[in-house]
């Protein structure tokens, strides 16, 4: 057992290193002598702790126990939002009261949202505080876009030589409505508790004609710009107007036991989209959304070429990705590069694709996806476990010849690249389309694909699906590994079960090593 996080009022632990989202075997928990019942998750959180207090946590498996002691840090004071006038009755507009409490909180203090339904517009965070949602506390986002402030995308400096970027939409600095919880340049913030942030998008018009920009682009539920040392623990985010959690240009971010939910047919409700961020740790989080569960991004070409800030040093572990288009996706906006990504001990079920890397010509020379590894991942009913697509037909010009041509194009400042991708100890059952579909660029093939110690099996009634979203990719079912324009493919101790036809369908590929 390992302690992952301690705050004045909460903590989080890794119970079973060998599990995935679930521990291999549940444990009985006892805290300071009080039984907490059985815990089946590999990563769990405890709330309602007291500051500046010693705790002893025991995890029992039969007669064997593991013990861990920890001390909660001090807390200066608590500001209860109801003392600022928040009603929490599901009708009153509590925006001003909630915002006042946040802005008034002293360093090291805590803003407490008690049980209740708080109708609110976008709220802005401040540094050095804890915002705690008690169980039953819900932020209900307003549904009328006319009541949302707008974050301008780009504002020129007075001397017109520089720019200040604030709003963001799909990798470009474009005006967007402020999100339910927004942090601009804040640090040392903890958002904790068993509460809910509900975007209520289905009650407004956010999901109606979603591609149209009306006033500004759609808000997220949680948006960070230039922040550091932020932890989100235990909260549930649901029904976002667009992406759910969207930190940008931020570092040292931790997400523990968060839930992200949106209907399967909701538009662009990605679960977690870190963009040009560093050092992210995400543990024990559950996703069930209408688009990619996790999509690691680094902007489109303007941002990539001007700032080239990669998204790097990312660990996603003991998480659960249900449904959604992709379990963990890289791109397609990755113009600043994505590297050093570790996805391990996760459980994916029902996604269209497990690991999905998508890019395209035009993302730029800094758009390098490299050193991305999946290990100890269990997939059930993931239709295509591994998809790498360098001709993803996104954006207004996505289906043009420039993006889709299979002929070698000149390598220039707009050409992206994909380096090393590794799949190790992946167990995928109930696959449908294929084991993997890799489509590089003829002028810049994918570097290296390594699959080892893995087993892939198909469901007998597999339904055809186009494995990659590129022009000319036909639907298929029960295919093996299909690859085009890849430099090196290595398969070690790996089995494909139930494939119809060739296990390996390779074209314009370099070295193949099988053992």
């Amino acid at each position, binding site marked *: 057992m390992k302690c992952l996080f301690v705050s004045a009022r909460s903590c989080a632990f890794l119970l079973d290193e060998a599990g995935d989202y679930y521990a291999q075997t549940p444990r009985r928990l006892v805290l300071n002598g009080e039984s907490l019942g059985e815990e089946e998750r590999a990563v769990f959180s405890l709330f309602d702790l007291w500051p500046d207090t010693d705790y002893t946590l025991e995890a029992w498996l039969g007669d064997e126990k593991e013990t861990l002691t920890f001390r909660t840090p001090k807390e200066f004071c608590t500001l209860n939002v109801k003392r600022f006038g928040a009603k929490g009755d599901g009708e009153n507009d509590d925006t001003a009261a909630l915002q006042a409490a946040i802005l008034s909180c002293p360093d090291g203090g805590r803003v407490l949202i008690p049980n209740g339904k708080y109708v609110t517009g976008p709220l802005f965070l401040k540094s050095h505080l804890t915002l705690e949602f008690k169980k039953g506390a819900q932020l209900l986002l307003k549904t009328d876009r006319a009541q949302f402030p707008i974050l*301008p995308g*780009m504002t*020129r400096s*007075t001397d*017109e030589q520089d720019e200040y970027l604030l709003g963001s*939409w*799909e990798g*470009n*600095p*474009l005006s967007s409505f402020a999100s339910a919880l927004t942090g601009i340049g804040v640090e040392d913030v903890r958002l904790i508790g068993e509460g809910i942030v509900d975007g209520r998008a289905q009650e407004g018009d956010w999901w109606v004609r979603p591609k149209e*920009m009306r006033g500004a682009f759609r808000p997220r539920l949680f948006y960070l710009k230039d922040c550091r040392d932020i932890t989100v623990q235990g909260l549930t985010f649901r029904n976002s107007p667009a992406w759910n959690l969207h930190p940008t240009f931020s570092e040292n971010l931790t997400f523990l036991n968060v839930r992200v939910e949106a209907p399967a047919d909701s538009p662009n409700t990605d679960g977690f989209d870190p963009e040009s961020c560093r050092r992210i740790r995400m543990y024990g989080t559950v996703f069930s959304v209408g688009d990619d569960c996790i999509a690691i991004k680094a902007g*489109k*070409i*303007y941002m990539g*070429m001007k700032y080239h800030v990669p998204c790097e040093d990312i660990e996603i572990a003991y998480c659960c990705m249900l449904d959604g288009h992709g379990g963990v996706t890289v791109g397609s906006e990755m113009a600043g590069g994505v590297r050093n990504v570790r996805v391990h001990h996760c459980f994916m079920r029902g996604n269209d694709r497990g690991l999905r890397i998508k890019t395209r010509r035009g993302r730029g020379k800094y758009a390098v996806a490299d050193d991305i590894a999946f290990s100890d991942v269990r997939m059930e009913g993931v239709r295509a476990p591994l998809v790498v697509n360098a001709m993803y037909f996104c*954006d*207004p*010009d996505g*289906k*043009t*010849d*420039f993006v889709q041509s299979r002929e070698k194009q000149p390598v220039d400042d707009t050409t992206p690249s994909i380096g090393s991708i590794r799949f190790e100890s992946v167990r995928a059952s109930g696959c449908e389309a294929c084991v993997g579909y890799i489509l590089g660029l003829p002028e810049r093939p994918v570097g290296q694909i390594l699959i080892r110690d893995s087993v892939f099996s198909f469901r007998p009634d597999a339904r055809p699906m186009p494995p990659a979203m590129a022009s000319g990719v036909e639907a298929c079912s029960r295919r093996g590994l299909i690859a085009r324009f890849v430099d090196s493919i290595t398969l070690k101790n790996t089995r494909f079960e139930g494939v119809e036809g060739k296990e390996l369908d390779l074209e314009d590929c370099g070295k193949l090593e099988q053992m």
Partner: protein
Amino acid sequence: MRLIDLNVFAEKSAREFAAGRSAPSLTDAWALRAFAALYQADGKPQFRETVLSWLEKRVSRDGKIDLPMGDGGGYKKEALGAAILFADRETQDARYRLAADQLMETAGNIPSGQIDESTAAFSMEEAFLLMPFRAEYDARLGTKQLARFIAARFLSCRKALTLESLPLPILGLYLSALSDTLEKMEIQLYEHYRALADLLTEAAGLALRRWEAQSGLLDAPPQNAPALGGCALTAYALMKGVRLGALDEEKYLKKAQLAFGRLMDILPDGADDPQGKKAKYACLMALAEEGRAQKE
């Protein structure tokens, strides 16, 4: 001239244009742009009808544009593209979509190569008349493949524009071409959109510095039609750039409105030559943009 007189002047111009019997010419494209802009500014049906009735007589049901157009230049009917797309948006009449498709067959070939001072005059009028059409068609009806070429074409002018010897009217054409094209560009093809926005900022700063250095426009109005038209287009473009959020309001709007005010004191009424007519229509476009600035 007071604003109310300017509006009367605009309505009179529309009536004259509608009743006009002279042979079709390139200045008609300028007129249609001006009246469409006036309609978008204040919603007066007269301006909308002026554009639509002119086009209805000349665009057949199968989208053929039946009129020769002179005044030199290689663009001829393509110059009507922006007006045709206006009619398409306003009426959803299939003839205008067909006409736009046909115009794009030639207008879709965007010239490449550097523009220097010797080619600037022609190239800038080409940009003013055709680029907004190309951008709108590409973004709204086409495949969005042209944005990069549109941006590249404007970028090829950059060196010529910084020449002190470049006549201000040409700079005005370029600024208007930029602002009108920016309005129609697909903003999510941001790298190309942003390239135009940056050019507009640079060119706007250049125009202001030249205005102030010459202490021409802001103290006394220009004395000939091309200069008048160029200054009107510059004022128009600066006001529009502010409205689009591409130019700083505090830096540009007041000066643009001041310049507009000076121009309106010497509106070229009754001008029959092409330059005079273009100047008049440029002033009407500036009037439209001033009206929108006043509302906001």
